[in-house]
């Protein structure tokens, strides 16, 4: 071997013996021998400087507590805490079905006679607004229910579906906000704003 050792060969030489022809070269080449010796010395220096001072014995308990606090402050959705959403997702599905049945059941169209006599030309528009506000209130209520009702209550009432259905439901639910849940319910019902 006549050429100097490459960077890669020098780095490799720090952790395994040189090949025979590399060794022959290094034995005759002061530049390569010097470079290699300097690198080995530096690695030894770095290794010697690597001792991490042991913190006080109380430190580890404090650190655990800090991590616990920080993690508790994290939104639950961000975690791998699947158990949190599993029942809620199931509940969302159940509520969606119930609401679908209760709200979207075909209702008799009020006859013109049933309308107040004072209905003006924009009564229809006013009625739309009222309906919209009414459904906002309804969505708020659903959201509140969804976050306040206990899963055990739901299970006791026979509302929580089987594990397979729950597993299917959880796949599509990842956001931890009540708004997101309400949005999901809206989407499931095909409701528009």
């Amino acid at each position, binding site marked *: 071997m006549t050429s100097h050792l490459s960077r890669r060969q020098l780095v490799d030489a720090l952790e395994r013996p040189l090949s025979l022809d590399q060794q022959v070269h290094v034995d005759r080449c002061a530049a390569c021998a010097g470079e290699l010796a300097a690198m080995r010395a530096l690695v030894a220096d770095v290794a010697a*400087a690597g001792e*991490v001072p042991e913190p006080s014995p109380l430190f580890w308990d404090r650190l655990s507590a800090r991590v616990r606090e920080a993690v508790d402050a994290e939104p639950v959705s961000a975690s791998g805490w699947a158990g949190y959403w599993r029942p809620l997702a199931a509940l969302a599905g159940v509520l969606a079905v119930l609401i679908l049945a209760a709200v979207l059941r075909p209702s008799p169209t009020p006859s013109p006679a049933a309308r107040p006599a004072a209905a003006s030309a924009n009564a229809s528009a006013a009625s739309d607004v009222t309906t919209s506000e009414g459904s906002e209130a309804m969505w708020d209520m659903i959201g509140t229910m969804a976050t306040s009702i206990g899963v055990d209550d739901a299970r006791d009432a026979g509302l929580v579906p089987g594990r397979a259905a729950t597993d299917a439901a959880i796949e599509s639910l990842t956001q931890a906000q009540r708004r997101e849940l309400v949005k999901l319910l809206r989407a499931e019902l095909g409701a528009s704003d």
Partner: protein
Amino acid sequence: MSTAVRSASMTAFAAWSPRVSEDSAMGDRQAPSREAVARLREADDRALVEAFLAGAREAFDVIVERHQRHVYQLCYRFLGNHEDASDLTQDVFVRAFKGLRNFKGDAALGTWLYRVGVNTCLNRVALKQPRLETIEPEQHVDSRHPDAHELVARDERAVAVRRAIARLPPKQRATLVLRIYQEMSHEDIAAVLGSSEGAVKANFFHALGNLKRLLRQRP
């Protein structure tokens, strides 16, 4: 995650923590029984991850207890001081908490935490130069010790080397720390840093070259 795996996790969870019910996960954390925590402490990492994914929040506390020393040491070697290392250790575990769902189980939990740790350290050093160690080396050495002079010199050298490492470009620093302190292979370092083995070796070479220059510069 498949239904089968999740069901297995639920079983593990039920076994570990009978008093932490699903609905407790919906509100404030209930204090788990001492026996439940004791059982978690005896579980291996894989079982802890499964229990955590199944909703046993305390399993994560046990993971932290078990791995915090290694993560702290990694952070300390990156940053060279206690305060930054403590802050960063906390950050690493918060990221791990968020990302544990994506832990595939194909590597050991410790290795995965390392990867999270290295990435957190790299992000941190990219944003901010670490505070440099200010401890005077003489403070560590008893002057009555027969080899006091030599010990002081060794300590001084160690402080200088740590300072120099802290001034290396992030990837070079990462390569050096992972290779020399964590004794990872170039191939594993490449996997952690998302580069090639050749690039890792080149980084290592440049890290040593820069270190030599920085140490020569010091007063």
